[in-house]
């Protein structure tokens, strides 16, 4: 004989239990079922047990959907391609932004240095010149000869200074290239140093937070252990006292025997 056979509920009992559990009964149906529950221990036990199951189920939470979808710049997730990204793309995505910026700046700097880019603004307007283009020496000479005497002297001084500054023969574009590269490298190094400092500060802060948490947890655990030890000591002390009293009473009885 099953439990169901012991129950005298006339309509569909299983559905009624489910409807009752999930609050899906009409007022009249609910009243009727509650009246039945008051008299039927089988159904009452089952409803209690299934309510307990539901309470247990409520404690099951899935893990967070980390990287299920890619989050966009506005805080919202965005669809990402279902096919796996190429390894190089994935690797590039893993590189921090600041490193990518630094590398980009470095590349641009080296490129500009190699090109020996010169931007000047004179009477004839804006001019952009690169090291790949040869300097127009005859034109420069012609313009010098046509200029005023002080300008000739100035040009001579400039040439002398240039000659002094270049004691060894080097390619014309090498010096500016090295200089500009050095500047860019210095900037990148400075950025790297700043970033490292920032990361170190953040790391220090996080370590501090973790240590604080550990400390708080440790204190809580110690106080809990302390309380437990206190309780154990109390109960042990009580037990010792009780046994001592028993021994005393036994000793008294033994001593009173003839």
């Amino acid at each position: 004989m099953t439990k169901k056979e012991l129950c005298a509920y006339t309509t569909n009992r299983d559905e009624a239990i489910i409807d009752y559990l999930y609050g899906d009964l009409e007022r009249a149906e609910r009243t009727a079922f509650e009246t039945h529950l008051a008299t039927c221990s089988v159904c009452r036990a089952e409803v209690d047990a299934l309510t307990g199951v539901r309470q247990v189920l409520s404690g099951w939470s899935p893990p967070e959907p980390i990287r299920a979808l890619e989050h966009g710049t506005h805080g919202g997730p965005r669809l990402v391609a279902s096919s796996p990204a190429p390894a190089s793309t994935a690797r590039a995505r893993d590189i921090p932004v600041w490193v990518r910026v630094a590398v980009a700046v470095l590349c641009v700097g080296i490129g500009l240095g190699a090109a020996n880019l010169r931007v000047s603004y004179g009477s004839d307007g804006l001019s952009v010149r690169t090291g790949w283009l040869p300097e127009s020496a005859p034109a420069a000479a012609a313009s010098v000869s046509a200029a005023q005497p002080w300008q000739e002297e100035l040009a001579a001084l400039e040439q002398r200074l240039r000659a002094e500054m270049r004691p060894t023969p080097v390619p014309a574009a090498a010096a500016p290239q090295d200089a500009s590269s050095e500047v860019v490298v210095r900037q990148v190094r400075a950025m790297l140093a700043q970033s490292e400092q920032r990361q170190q500060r953040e790391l220090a802060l996080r370590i501090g937070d973790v240590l604080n948490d550990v400390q708080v947890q440790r204190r809580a655990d110690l106080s809990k252990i302390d309380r437990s030890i206190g309780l154990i000591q109390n109960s042990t002390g009580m037990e010792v006292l009780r046994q001592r009293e028993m021994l005393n009473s036994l000793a008294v009885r033994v001593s009173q025997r003839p």
Partner: protein
Amino acid sequence: MTSTDEELVARSVSGDTESFNELILRWERPIYALAYRTIGREEDARDVCQETFLRAFRALPGFRGQAKFSSWLYRIALNLCRDWMRRERRAPIVQVPEDSDPMELAAAVEPSESIEDLVARRDLTRIVERVMARLPEEQRTAIVLKEYHGLTFQEIADLVGCPLSTVKTRLYQGLTVLRRELEKDGATRPPSQLP
């Protein structure tokens, strides 16, 4: 003012991708939870979640609004879960780590939760995952949709394509099996009363 799903769908259909991203933001977590509880594997649940939104995006122009957007999305996700289970030809796998990592435990602890409570909660989660994995697919789906997504019996019936009474029967049978299995594990009491 927050837009309704239907408004966001209408804007997405007319080419506003931000609206679709808003829908993803709104439904990503429930869909992932549904997939995880149905198939029991984090990686695959993520894939199912992503694929659900991709399919929804592709099929959006054909969405006529006969059903709620969420029901439509649930249906896509459930179909994908079913495909996954057929492909794998097995019951959902429960990923239970052999040993609890103390660092992981410490990271997951709630401010008001002691380590003991956390361990008890983890144990309970493992037990629930294990017993849920033993349920037949239909019963598990009914329980997941009702317990965790709050769908009505009629919505579940429409989603899985069966009569209303069948949904209730599956739910009853599923809960009864869970009760028996949980009693074996001694976990039928509510979490707050667990040791």
